[in-house]
């Protein structure tokens, strides 16, 4: 009797020891069974992209509670900082997977995203890209990489289509524009795409001059002087936040108010842009991946963000990071398992119509790209962001032309 129980005890002890060892050695296996889905979130939260990375993180932090309230399964976030660096991005992706992440989300920057995608592909761990517009990423034949964000040519196509809608609605259009773009990955991809995409849309304007500027520009006075001298009706821009603010200030100082500022990238709608520039922030129209204000989930996300951070307006960074996690939770629910292969199979058949971004919803094509996602046109007005196009998502009429900078308080 004692003998048997001792043996049983020992067996239990051994089993316990083995379990402990297993937890130490391969936490993935043990924690995978049931419970929350462990999602590794990789974002550049320090280094030169820290601002955007930390903004994206807001969207991620809101996700678990909202997704739960929608009846989706629990997800646990495992956050990692890529430090805006390709080497670090790869090492962090490996670490997250080693620590038991069953799905990865990230990473804003195209270079870091590519490095993570390779790790995900080798390990067979699904990777849902939140933001990264370089077309090459989904042209690599990856099986585990998914992108719910438009590529540069998609952004351009939607931008031109929406511009034409707006021009038609107001019965006016610029005859010529100056195209200013930042010379970084995104800016160059857009600048290259424009030559191929613009002719298809028979735009009413011509590009009078193209001005590329340094992403780390300290001063954009020359760039603006050059643009002003080109004597065009409107300004077409692809920029980031800091340069958008610099450009605006220079426009004011050099006393030039173009008929319109048509932006096809971040910056001009950012919270900081609105807050820092006040009444000078009014007027620019951004043609960007955006939320549909009429969708139910948008209102939920907006409310949650307002509660978490009352100073922040909902933007692209939050939306697409949140949606990446939405894709994850939805796939987990349908797969019923945290097995990466099952998750990836489930993501491939994703069909979410109740989402945040504009368009019919989230579904991935054979390359892992969501080719249904649509961009909107939004205008800054009185510190708020109003949606002008597409028609289904619109909640305001365009204000055209821009009010002169000199007449503002």
């Amino acid at each position: 009797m004692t003998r048997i129980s001792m043996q049983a005890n020992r067996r239990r002890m051994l089993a316990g020891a083995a379990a402990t060892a297993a937890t130490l050695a391969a936490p993935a296996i043990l924690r995978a069974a049931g419970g929350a889905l462990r999602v590794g979130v990789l974002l550049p939260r320090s280094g030169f992209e820290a601002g955007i990375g930390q903004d994206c993180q807001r969207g991620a932090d809101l996700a678990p509670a909202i997704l739960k309230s929608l009846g989706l399964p629990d997800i646990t976030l495992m956050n990692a900082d890529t430090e805006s660096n390709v080497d670090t991005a790869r090492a962090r992706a490996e670490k997250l997977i080693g620590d038991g992440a069953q799905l990865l989300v990230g990473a804003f920057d195209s270079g870091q995203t590519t490095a993570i995608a390779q790790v995900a592909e080798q390990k067979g761990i699904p990777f849902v890209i939140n933001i990264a517009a370089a077309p090459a990423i989904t042209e690599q034949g990856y099986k585990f990489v998914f992108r719910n964000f438009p590529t540069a040519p998609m952004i351009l196509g939607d931008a031109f289509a929406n511009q034409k809608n707006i021009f038609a609605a107001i019965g006016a259009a610029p005859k010529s524009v100056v195209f200013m773009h930042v010379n970084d990955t995104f800016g160059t991809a857009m600048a290259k795409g424009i030559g191929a995409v613009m002719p298809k849309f028979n735009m009413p304007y011509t590009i009078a001059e193209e001005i590329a500027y340094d992403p780390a520009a300290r001063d954009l006075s020359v760039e603006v002087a050059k643009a002003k001298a080109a004597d065009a009706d409107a300004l077409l821009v692809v920029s980031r936040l800091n340069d958008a603010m610099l450009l605006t200030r220079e426009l004011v100082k050099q006393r030039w108010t173009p008929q319109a500022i048509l932006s096809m990238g971040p910056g001009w709608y950012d919270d900081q842009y609105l807050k820092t520039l006040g009444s000078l922030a009014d007027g620019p129209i951004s043609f960007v991946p955006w939320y549909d204000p009429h969708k139910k989930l948008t209102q939920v996300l907006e409310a949650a963000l307002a509660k978490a951070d009352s100073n922040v307006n909902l933007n692209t960074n939050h939306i697409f990071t949140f949606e990446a996690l939405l894709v994850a939770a939805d796939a987990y629910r349908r797969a019923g398992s945290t097995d990466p292969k099952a998750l990836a199979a489930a993501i491939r058949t994703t069909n979410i119509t109740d989402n945040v971004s504009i368009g019919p919803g989230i579904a991935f094509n054979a390359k892992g790209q969501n080719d249904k996602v649509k961009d909107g046109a939004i205008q800054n007005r009185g510190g708020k962001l109003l949606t002008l196009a597409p028609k289904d998502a619109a909640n305001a009429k365009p204000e055209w032309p821009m009010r002169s900078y000199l007449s503002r308080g």
Partner: protein
Amino acid sequence: MPLEVYFNVVIGGVLTGLVYGLMALGLSVIFGVVRVVNFAHGEMMTIAMFIAVLAFSALHLDPLIMLIPIAAVMFVFGYALQVALINPFIRRPEHTQFLLLVALAIIIANTLLIIFGPDARSVQTAYALDSFQLGPIIIDAAKVYAGAAAILFTVALFAFFRLTLVGKAIRACADNYTGALVVGLDVQRLYALTFGLGAACVGAAGAMLVLVVDVTPMLGPSYTLLAFVIVITGGLGSMPGALVGGVLIGVTEALAGLLFTPSAKSMFAFAILVLVLLFRPQGLLGRRLS
């Protein structure tokens, strides 16, 4: 392109160049005397810029008024840094100094990131967006004030080195280290003073620069590099050289941006640096190297 565009751009380049020059002056003063290349220079300026932003947002103190207090704070910072950390490294090889200051730069940039977050901060003074119009020429008001302050600050510093006893002693140290020891100068204290003065320059420059650029914690490295380019062009160790170098680089970048693609304009600054190093290694106004 209309002629006035060239005028506008060149005037802008001169004014910005003056402020850059003041920032670079700090590097030059430190190197000229202490013979340490301050690789954390840009980060020190970022600290000054954040102080200016804080002072403005909390107490509505104009950066131009804060210029002197910020320079004073940075003086103390520089002095302490020299005494506590850098002093033992003065006679050590350059790569060791490099590592020390790079480590310091990493600490400063990331501490600022933790404290202030990653977003760009700015100062919205009443005149921030003013410009003067003279016929077809438009001049940025903030740059005029900043440029003028840069000249004043440099003149004051120049006078200090030429006219005061301490200034003369510091110059003696720079000219002849052993001689300075022999005549009984307290070299260590003078070095600390110099480092403090260099930091004060960069502090003043930072206070002025917030009028025209937004500050982020990661701003440092690009300004460190800019400061190198300017001081080597102007002459490492030469005070007027730093301002001249600043103006030269400012105007070069401005014209290059106008005539070629602006995204490549800093290439022209580097080209000037390379040319200067090759044909006049001591810099435009530097003294012949021994």
